[in-house]
């Protein structure tokens, strides 16, 4: 039985333990039909030309985790930004772990999707926002059909959230192969400000496939900073679908740090529904071995006077493959748009591959849009300069690569997170770059 068939048939089992009389259930039923129709994307789809899911779809994934698993905090402390106080929403094998989490309902809601979907108090927010911006493609529909658990964050008007929120998913390997489908909804009302850090982490060598959907709504003048850390082991794959809808004068940034995982696909889509919006999409990818990271971005400029900034850096070693597929669409009405896109890559080994496809689709005339893309090596003269000053080759290379990715790092607004990522980069490059970490 193929994974698709298995998923479709397990939807009936899923229906047994959710309330089938709600509106949400109509959405789920419609979504499973869409998935049945479209299935998993193949290389024949233009957006998946360079990424094949075959290798990760062959496992016999269990779709429903059986029980709540407990992990000791000390074992997983390293995966948190633990040196600052944060709200935490932690999931173990797809189940909420209350003893590791720290949620709140005071002044804002940082809680669970399952609660938001069932409790009447959240009904209005769910009706207004749930599944409103997510694309109706196969993978997102699959997630919608099984949407039950995940993070729900609702920041009311005029509120600056005092500490960052961490969303962390662990998989323990109690199942031989596990498929997770977390669903997050983040609604930030007018003039509010929130910072969120998301991470997926597998704790064993058993294969894990995560098909995650996150919907983010930034209302008028809201500021949303979202950070994704992807540093998983070689058996964990992640398909991350993030959809951001912005209203006028809002600012939303998504930083994606991809340092590992068997296959990572980031679908990041921005829709600008208002004027004077600023969207930022940045990413650093440093991978090796047989890893595969694919960034697929879309910025849809719908109204005038908006900006978007995309900056993706990639360093690829061993047999790694990198894909960047960025698309900027500027509608006819979206005059005075400024859209920038840049994608820089370094191939370290002879067997690494990079495929990049930065696209512009422009229907308005009074715009400034540009994209740049480079594939190259480290500057030999810069390397020589460092070596001539007594810095060994390996460290010199590390320093230069760190500098290469620093552009993206510099816009991270949480100092502790920045430090953590700096450390990760140093670790990834295999050098002590001598900064005070």
């Amino acid at each position, binding site marked *: 039985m193929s994974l698709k068939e298995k998923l479709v048939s397990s939807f009936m089992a899923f229906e047994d333990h959710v309330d089938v009389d709600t509106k949400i259930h109509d959405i789920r039923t419609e979504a499973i039909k869409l998935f049945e129709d479209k299935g998993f994307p193949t290389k024949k789809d*233009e957006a998946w030309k360079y990424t094949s899911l075959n290798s990760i779809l062959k496992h016999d994934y269990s779709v429903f985790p059986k029980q709540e698993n407990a992990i000791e905090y000390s074992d997983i402390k390293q995966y948190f930004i633990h040196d600052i106080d944060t709200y935490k929403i932690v999931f173990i094998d797809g189940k909420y772990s209350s003893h590791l989490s720290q949620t709140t309902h005071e002044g804002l809601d940082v809680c669970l999707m399952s609660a938001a979907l069932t409790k009447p108090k959240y009904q209005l927010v769910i009706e207004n926002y749930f599944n409103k911006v997510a694309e109706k493609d196969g993978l997102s529909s699959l997630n919608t059909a099984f949407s039950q658990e995940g993070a729900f964050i609702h920041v009311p008007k005029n509120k600056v959230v005092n500490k960052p929120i961490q969303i962390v998913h662990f998989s323990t390997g109690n199942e031989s192969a596990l498929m997770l489908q977390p669903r997050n909804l983040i609604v930030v009302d007018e003039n509010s400000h929130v910072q969120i850090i998301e991470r997926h982490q597998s704790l064993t060598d058993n294969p894990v496939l995560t098909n995650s959907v996150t919907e983010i709504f930034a209302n008028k003048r809201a500021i949303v900073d979202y950070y994704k850390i992807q540093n998983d082991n070689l058996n964990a794959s992640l398909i991350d679908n993030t959809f951001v809808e912005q209203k006028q004068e809002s600012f939303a940034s998504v930083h994606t740090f991809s340092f590992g995982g068997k296959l990572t696909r980031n679908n990041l889509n921005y829709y600008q529904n208002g004027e004077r919006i600023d969207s930022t999409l940045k990413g650093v990818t440093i991978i090796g071995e047989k890893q595969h990271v694919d960034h697929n971005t879309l910025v849809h400029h719908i109204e005038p006077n908006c900006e978007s900034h995309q900056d993706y850096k990639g360093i690829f070693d061993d047999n790694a493959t990198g894909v960047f597929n960025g698309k900027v669409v500027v509608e*006819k009405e979206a*005059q005075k748009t400024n859209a920038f896109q840049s994608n820089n*890559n370094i*191939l*370290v*080994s*002879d*067997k*690494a*591959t*990079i*495929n*990049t*496809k*930065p*696209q*512009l*689709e*422009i*229907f*308005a*005339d*009074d*715009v*400034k*849009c*540009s*994209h*740049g*893309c*480079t*594939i*190259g*090596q480290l500057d030999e003269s810069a390397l020589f300069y460092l070596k001539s000053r007594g810095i060994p080759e390996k460290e010199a290379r590390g320093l230069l690569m760190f500098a290469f990715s620093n552009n993206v790092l510099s816009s991270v607004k949480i100092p502790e997170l920045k430090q953590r990522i700096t450390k990760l980069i140093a670790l990834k490059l295999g050098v002590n770059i001598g900064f005070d970490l």
Partner: protein
Amino acid sequence: MSKYTEDDLREELKTKEYEYGFYTDIESDTFPVGLNEDIVRAISVKKEEPEWMTEWRLDAFKTWKEMVEPEWANVHYEKPDFQAISYYSAPNNKPKYDSLDEVDPELLDTFNKLGISLDEQKKLAGVAMDVVVDSVSVATTFKKTLAEKGIIFCSISEAIREYPDLVKKYIGTVVPKKDNFYAALNSAVFSDGSFCYIPKGVKCPMELSTYFRINQAGTGQFERTLVVADQGSYVSYLEGCTAPSRDENQLHAAVVELIALDDAEIKYSTVQNWFPGNAEGKGGVYNFVTKRGLCEKNAKISWTQVETGSAVTWKYPSCVLKGDNSVGEFYSIAVTNNFQQADTGTKMIHLGKNTKSTIISKGISAGKSQNSYRGLVQIAGRAENARNFSQCDSLLMGNECGAHTFPYIEAKNKSAQIEHEATTSKIGEDQIFYCNQRGIDTEKAIALIVNGFSKEVLNKLPMEFAVEAQKLLEISLEGSVG
């Protein structure tokens, strides 16, 4: 004095009819419409082709029957009905002429209207012309001069008869019969085209050029061009076209193959001005062309194109950089207006070591047109030190048109150095203001800016051609700019 504003310009352009839309009444020898094996055979017989060529065509036809029309391009059009096209049409007055006086005066008149009269061309800087009217070459000039150098420049059907070994050796090596839907169709039914062979070490003393025209109603034109530059030789080849105004869509599916052997250099320039359809988007030529060049060691191929016509253009002149140290270049200006759609670009396939490629593409869209750049830069695993620089700039005029960029970059070698840059903008008010301030009126200022925008490509055209290219740019752009 009333001011000539951008709006006036735009208005003028919208209403401007295709100036070169006329139809020369030459009695033609036309085949019945439709396509089947018999038609393919008949074309072959008509061209007095040897057996192997007939087989080659039939093989291509068999493949074509099993292929489906591609749909990936960013263009929308009504698909041509391949059974409603006549696949062969030749002007009736067949005898070859030794001098211009003998050429059908009506035909000469056609060329005069286009401003490319043969005598003028003859006088101008030694351009030899292989004039193609509806698929059959009717006049060839300067053949003698070329013959002295050992250069073969003739129609492809003549080449098949006279130089079968050369043709057999190279035809279909760069664009295989089965390459794509339109290449297969062309391989089966091509009626004529040009063949050019430059022997070892010879530098062709003049620019070779052909003019293509679609003349007979309902005639698809299937050109086949084969240019072979032997070791250490050099040739510059010009191709240009205009077509009469028609209401039904005409299909143009040409194949151009360039082969540059070791140390050779080929420069291929095109000025394309097929009928783009009128202001309502009615009529116009479909231009689905396969152009590809193969570079051996130290060879260089350079494509330069100015695209102003066609209702639908679909064209990717490509370079396969097979030999070490080979160089590929692509310079393009694509102008679209009214309802024109263009999906054009290039492919640079780096296979050899130290290969270099440069892509400069300038897209200008006005009216309700859609202009896309689609390009591929591919670095194979053993292509050490490959280098690519791409620049795609788009200029938008008016808010009903679109400019799109679809670059594909695939690198499999760590020593590759690839840069890609694209910008989209309109003519800035500040730029216009700057010119106005210095006493240059708006219309001139716009012309100046557009000229500057496309300069990098215009500069690459041979002198004789640059004049005509600018003329065509004027026709398609004057008025639309701004």
